[in-house]
């Protein structure tokens, strides 16, 4: 078993999920079976392979090496037109609880 009940509780805490006892049991089973399957990746020696977080960091098969990546996310420091911000009332429109200015939430209590 890769994952223990303690691990499930710890991860649920990190993920801000309050799981019921039944959900925790199911999660223990599912996570273990999935992680066992994922062990397949250990068949591969990747010690000299660079990681790839997203498509844009690699040149493409059919791209001329002289052209820069089409995903160049940086741009000239010129505003592409000043767009208006979302008006406050619109921003608050979906709030479960608001006072017209702020989103209202329960008190944060220090543990």
């Amino acid at each position: 078993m890769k994952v223990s009940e303690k691990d499930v509780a710890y991860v649920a805490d990190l993920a801000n999920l309050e799981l019921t006892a039944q959900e925790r049991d199911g999660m223990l089973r599912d996570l273990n079976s999935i992680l066992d399957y994922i062990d397949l990746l250990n068949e591969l020696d990747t010690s000299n392979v660079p990681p790839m977080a997203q498509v844009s960091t690699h040149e493409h098969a059919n791209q001329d090496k002289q052209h820069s990546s089409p995903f160049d996310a940086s741009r000239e420091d010129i505003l592409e037109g000043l767009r208006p911000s979302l008006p406050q009332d619109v921003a608050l429109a979906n709030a479960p609880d608001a006072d017209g200015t702020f989103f209202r939430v329960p008190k944060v209590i220090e543990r």
Partner: protein
Amino acid sequence: MDLHTLTIHATRTAIQERKTTAFALAEACYARIQKEDGQIGAFLTLSKDRALEQADRIDRMAAEGKPLPPLGGVPVAIKDVMVTRGVRSTAGSKILDNFIPPYDCTAVARLESAGALILGKTNCDEFAMGSSNENSGFHPVHNPRDLSRVPGGSSGGSAAAVAADMVVAALGSDTGGSIRQPASFCGVVGLMPTYGRVSRYGLIAFASSLDHIGPLTKTVGDAALMLRTIAGRDPMDATSADVPVPDYVAELEKPVRGLKIGVAKEYFGEGLDDEVRQAVESAIDKLKSLGCEIIPVSLPHTRYAIPTYYLIATAEASANLARYDGVRYGHRAHNVKTLPEMYRRSRDEGFGAEVKRRIMLGTYALSAGYYDAYYLKAQKVRTLLTQDFKEAFRTVDAIVTPTAPTAAFRLGEKSNDPLAMYLADIYTVTADLVGIPGISVPCGETKEKLPIGLQILGKHFDEATILRVAHGYEQAA
């Protein structure tokens, strides 16, 4: 007008020539939805006011003899993971049950600017996580071709709406196969463009390095037209590519003779249903008869794609779904005394089981002590998969595979075994990981009359070639 035979071109022409009106067509679609959707479950929200206002606008243009825009009067449906201003958008989740977005997804805005009527928002697996549309927070979708079976997922609602002639075209999203696989199961065309070809602005994020928006249509020609309309750089999405958009429609009629088509043995091995194999092999023979050169290729790391995908996608999802905390929008739990309790209970109440499972897996894979063994390892295997395709594309122009290992399975058949469900994505996930485009076209049926899909994969930004192959096949089949 026969809703079954309407293509985008036929629709626009009929309205321009005043053989019908956009209004009448929209009403006919809504009548069909009213009649059939109780059994199918494709739609979550209908946007009648918006659609009929647009229809009036288009009809006025036609009455004045003005040329209609390219999608003038064409009824379309939008998967509920794409936001639509003023129209409820849920991502298929109860956690967003009452969410009314203040802006439009760029792809939706572009369709509307081109004259399309947005009829409504389609059902999907919650936050696009699923391969059967059984994970919707609301109700499952039934395959119009056989109501006891799944339409595929996660864009099951969009695929079903097109297959059931409720709309002429739809938008879906694809992260691990979610456009192509439901297209295959429902017998329609589904196109996933190159990563970055279409802006993701307004697409409720599942996995940011894997998400794509793309069309589901009745014909390849319609998919080309939809792509031409929605593709292109968007300043609101920094990952949208600054690559010119070719006229995909003009490129379609180029002959396929001489194109080199790769067939990878790893996609025809164990687990592939015999009827699917036969249909796909016949399709390959058909391509050969059209003058394509069939070349064997190898994609040796194929078997590692699913574990790689389920680490990267879940890790990214755990980060993307952290925003659903009951503070600014969406479900907030009642009777909570502290802020942490509010976060935890809102999320536990609002999210379905599969979403929680994936958040947990992703969080685990990123947590201290496990990051290297899981997430980083998966990123390295992603590089190996990319190298496989790079190598293969040195000798071929496109690669054909089955879209899915089977035809549509029955509702409930795989829903108790998450791993079995994940394995259904085996032929589609690699394209998402590598960022290349892929299209699924119908290529036959099983003995039980269930649709089978042929997948064509292409080089980055070479949608023109895969559309050309798909179109050539479609015309000849």
